[in-house]
Structures are given as structure tokens and as C-alpha cells.
């Protein structure tokens, strides 16, 4: 490697150290699986490295990486053409309580619940609720309409509602 390559490698490594946790967590939201998240994060950073000059010139290199992560995830799902559809939670997705004494009705793990969503629903969830992006921003990022974002966000909320909403609220008539 030349001096420039060495410097790029150093810069890139520092960038991964600084942003890796955030990107990995986003990948966990998208995939719901540790190893798939590791694969997705690594593949994303590999792409980022190939465009390193462009990334460092970007206003927000982290935002660039996050967009790459999302596109990589969605394009991979399209490539697989596996016809994923939202489905109901299974018993196998019911995990242990979050903490001793936790409400047993809250046993279903959030990540397990997310895996029941379509990939695009998960992408909407990531942008709307993890990154606090607006409906319009989310729609623009994903190339779908505002209405589609609202529909998918609503579907995601309905799936997560039993895990997040207070029990008292869920018991209301």
C-alpha cells in the first residue's frame, strides 16, 4: 500500500471505531439477528471504504454510511426474492423477561417482533423512530410515498404495541 492508501486505511479504521456501534445497532433493527447484522455492517463498511474519498467529502460521513447500510439491506432482500410477508409471532419468538419481575405479557422480545415485519417496514421503523426522521424525509429516503410511510409505520406500531404500550392501556375497552 502506498502512503495515501495507508492514510485512508487509518482514517477508515478510526471511522469504524467511532461509528461501528451505531451502525451495528441499526443493522440489528433491520435484521433482528446478530450474525446477519455483523454481515450487513461489514458489507456496508466495505462499500464505504471503496468510496472513501466521496464519503469523507460528504457533509455527514455517518449519514452516508447509514444510507449505504439501508440500501445494502434492501437490495439484498430484493435479490433474494424470498417473498417475505408480515406474519404473526410464534412461540419461538417469545423470549425471557427483560428483567426479574417484569410483566410476563412483555416477554416477547422487541427484536423478535421486528423480524415479523417486511423489510421495508423495518426500514421505515429505523428511519422514523430510530433516527427520528420525518414522514417526508423517510419517504424521500426510501423512494415511497408519504402515505406508504404512514401505512408501514402504523403496521410496525401495531406489531410493537403489545411490547411497548402500558398494560393498563391495552386492557382498555
Amino acid at each position, binding site marked *: 500500500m502506498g502512503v495515501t492508501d495507508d492514510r485512508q486505511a487509518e482514517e477508515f479504521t478510526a471511522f*469504524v471505531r467511532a461509528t461501528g456501534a451505531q451502525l451495528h445497532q441499526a443493522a440489528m433493527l433491520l435484521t433482528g439477528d446478530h450474525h446477519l447484522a*455483523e454481515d450487513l*455492517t461489514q458489507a*456496508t463498511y466495505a462499500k464505504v471504504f*471503496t468510496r472513501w474519498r466521496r464519503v469523507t467529502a460528504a457533509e455527514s460521513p455517518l449519514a452516508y454510511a447509514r444510507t449505504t447500510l439501508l440500501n445494502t439491506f434492501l437490495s*439484498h432482500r430484493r435479490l433474494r426474492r424470498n417473498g417475505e410477508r408480515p406474519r404473526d409471532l410464534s412461540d419461538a419468538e417469545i423470549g425471557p423477561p427483560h428483567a426479574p419481575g417484569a410483566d410476563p405479557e412483555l416477554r416477547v422480545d422487541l427484536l423478535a417482533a421486528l423480524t415479523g415485519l417486511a423489510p421495508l417496514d423495518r426500514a421505515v*421503523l429505523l428511519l422514523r423512530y430510530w433516527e427520528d426522521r420525518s414522514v417526508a424525509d423517510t419517504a424521500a429516503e426510501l423512494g415511497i410515498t408519504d402515505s406508504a410511510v404512514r401505512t408501514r409505520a402504523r403496521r410496525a406500531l401495531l406489531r410493537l404495541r403489545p411490547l411497548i404500550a402500558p398494560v393498563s392501556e391495552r386492557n382498555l375497552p
Partner: protein
Amino acid sequence: MTDHDPVDRPDRLDRLDTLVGPALRERLRDERPDLEHLAIASLGAGQRMRRRRRVALSGTAAGVAVVAAVSVAAGVLSGPGTAARDDAVASTPTATATVTVPGADPVAPAVPTGPAFPVVVDAPGWTCEYFAIDEKAWCTRGELGVSVVARPRSSYDDWKGSADKEGSALWMSPLHGNYFVTLQGGEDGLSPADLTAFVAGMTFAPHWERP
């Protein structure tokens, strides 16, 4: 769920709107990757991608067309390729590529060079792509997908019995020479019978020549 279902009322969902982000952050707060491993692996994969692009560009300039032909033939132990689960990485194979030179026999394959993936899968209905340079193979059968990941012997003790590692894999092999493999699957889910048949169809090389 109907419009009359009280839990589906817009005001309740609006309230959830504000709770989802914090709940997700709380759930993922302790999810920490091995940053050093991630940096090294990502840098290596990125450098390999760059090299492939340079090779492809120089080949084009020389009038050589590189036809990406991923090895799907069972029985081919040598199948260097690219990254596994990501399309841009994985769909740019270099290992089992066929090089076609104008005037030459268009079907004559290039002599494979580089590393080899140590496992071949010959299970009924499954089709696999081998990405040896990234130490992975990706197998599909209809809507099912399984990733076969080769791992060095030095990682075996970390994996064996670990809830986070072995516990999250579909299956983990015993040691084969200097390596072992894990099967990772997405949310699609294999039945136990599917998994048994898949494992039975795996052939392991005695030694792994790691990329």
C-alpha cells in the same frame, strides 16, 4: 383489526409514536459489536473490492471481458468469490469467473486462482454460491436461505457453548483440521428435517486454505 378496535385508535398509536424510539434504544443499548474485528474485517473486504474493480478495469482496457459466473456446481471445492450476504459484494465474484478472450474458446474456464472455500453443499433442492475470499457461501432453496460461514480453529473455543454465538447459529460443525463452519439463517426458518438434510449434504475439506 377493524376501525372500531380501540387499540388501533389513532390517538393510541400517536402515543406509541413517542414511545417506540426510546424502547428500541433501550433494547439495543447493550448491543456492542467487536469494533476492532469489524474494522479489520471491513477494511480487508473493502480492499478486496477495490482490487477486484481495478482488475476488472484493467481487464476491460486490455479487451478482456470478465464474465461473472459464480460456481454453483457441487463438487467444486475451489471457488474463490466475493463477499457473502451483500449483493454488491457478493455479486461480483472473482474466483470462479470465466475469462473470455476475443478469438479464444469462449467456454474455456480460467484456471481458478486464490483461496478455496472448504465446504461443498450437495443437498437436494439447494443451490449455493461460494464466496471463498469472504469465507462464506450462500445457499438458497426456494424462499429459504442459509449462509455457510467458515471460521478459523482459533475461534472455536469462543464459539462452542456461547449463547451469543453457537446459540444464535442454526448449526455449528465440529473442527475439521484448521477450521469449522457455522450455518446462519434469517427469519425464514428451516424445519429440523430441512436442517438435517442440509448438514448431511455438506462435504468438508480436510484443510482450509484461508484467504
